[in-house]
């Protein structure tokens, strides 16, 4: 078995680069969805209305306890039954986003619980409304410590995008496998795909590090 460089340059790399935007889109939009839904989800779980907090809590546990792949299939096959037909990429983003929203809600919860009790008491002593207490005092303090953990999810989500190949989304893994099936040469395609993931992981990790440092500088003066 010999590595075919020409094949790599002419067939594999161009195809990978074409698939790259799809992977990046899937990653970024899923991440945004996860963060944007995760925070309200955490707040709902902390609701003083017993019914809400229990239902949301169990929902989160259920989402966390079932494989993402199955959830992708679930949305992919079930949504059309309700008349909602979305392009596979969108369905995938929805699935990955909501799954990680459930996971991120735990991260938000950790940050929230870490805010010192004295802050709540000061807000009460100053007669601030519960809503204002949350939005101006508690939540702003809960976010900076959890930025690293949240950023980590960007990388995790990135590595989950290959699951979308199961529903025929033209991301990196799907394209790589496709080349292999078509040309009977898997080595170059899959190895390059692997290296690409490695490089992108490192870039994403570096980006997260930059955001971390910026947040720390800005918030801790």
């Amino acid at each position, binding site marked *: 078995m010999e590595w075919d460089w020409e094949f790599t340059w002419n067939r594999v790399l161009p195809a990978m680069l074409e698939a790259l935007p799809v992977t990046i889109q899937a990653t970024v939009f899923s991440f945004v969805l996860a963060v944007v839904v995760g925070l309200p989800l955490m707040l709902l779980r902390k609701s003083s209305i017993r019914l809400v907090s229990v239902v949301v809590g169990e929902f989160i546990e259920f989402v966390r306890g079932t494989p993402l792949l199955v959830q992708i299939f679930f949305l992919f096959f079930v949504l059309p039954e309700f008349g909602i037909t979305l392009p596979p990429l969108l369905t995938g983003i929805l699935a990955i986003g909501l799954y990680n929203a459930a996971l991120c809600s735990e991260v938000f919860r950790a940050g929230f619980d870490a805010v010192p009790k004295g802050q709540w008491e000061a807000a009460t002593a100053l007669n*601030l409304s519960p809503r204002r207490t949350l939005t101006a005092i508690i939540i*702003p303090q809960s976010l900076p410590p959890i930025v690293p953990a949240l950023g980590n999810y960007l990388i995790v989500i990135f590595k989950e995008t290959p699951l979308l190949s199961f529903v025929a989304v033209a991301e990196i893994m799907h394209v790589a496998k496709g080349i292999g099936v078509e040309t009977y040469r898997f080595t170059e395609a899959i190895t390059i795909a692997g290296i690409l993931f490695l490089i992108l992981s490192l870039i994403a990790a570096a980006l997260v590090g930059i955001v971390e440092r910026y947040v720390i500088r800005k918030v*801790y003066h």
Partner: protein
Amino acid sequence: MAPKITFDNVTKRYGDLTVLDGLNLEIEEGEVVSIIGPSGSGKTTVLRVLMTLEGIQEGVISLDGEPFTHVRKGDGFVPAKPAHIRKLRTKIGMVFQSFNLFPHMTTLQNCIEAPVQSLGLRKDEAVERARELLGMVGMAEKEDHYPSQLSGGQQQRVAIARALAMRPEILLFDEPTSALDPEMVGEVLSVIRTLAAEHSYTMLLVTHQMGFAREVSDRILFFESGKFVEQGHPDTFFSNPQHSRTKEFLAKVLEAN
């Protein structure tokens, strides 16, 4: 005229532990009262239930004769709804042992947050009021600093200004100097002294600073085992305690000094 603060048979329990035991208390408007007693006796809890940081199991707390923690219903009382409490709670301000300044806001922002959000003041009005108060506590030049950039004594003075910005009628001080290094205690006590002498706030202090308590208070209350064991005017209280427990406590305190 009704007393400013009334505790009517107030009981508070944590599980099996009774911290406040059928407490009765009347504090007149403008009075400065110091509560002293052994550590862990629950003197702080007296302030905390008044500030509604914690609930009570029995009894009623009233402000200006009007029930605060409860509302009248028929012959008795039922726990008040949050809206009722919020309406009256604005009369009370509290200064905490650990300052509890908002770390993500500047000194000035700390002091205008509640007046703007809770009292509905316009921002410029709130800023003006805040600046005046910060000047009064000697922290005017630090208005753009963050709490992490201030010393303990400075933070506590800002905390006092923050509480005053709400124009409360009642001020609660929960061991305001206990968390401070000795050299900063004086600057905070000086502010409290000024408040007691030159203003008409009703003040409730929980403190270990006996000398200070003696100096500024109109009345001293000795608290132990859930009850007020003895009370008196500073002049007679320290020199001639009546109750044996009071004598024991004061003796220990004097020994330590």
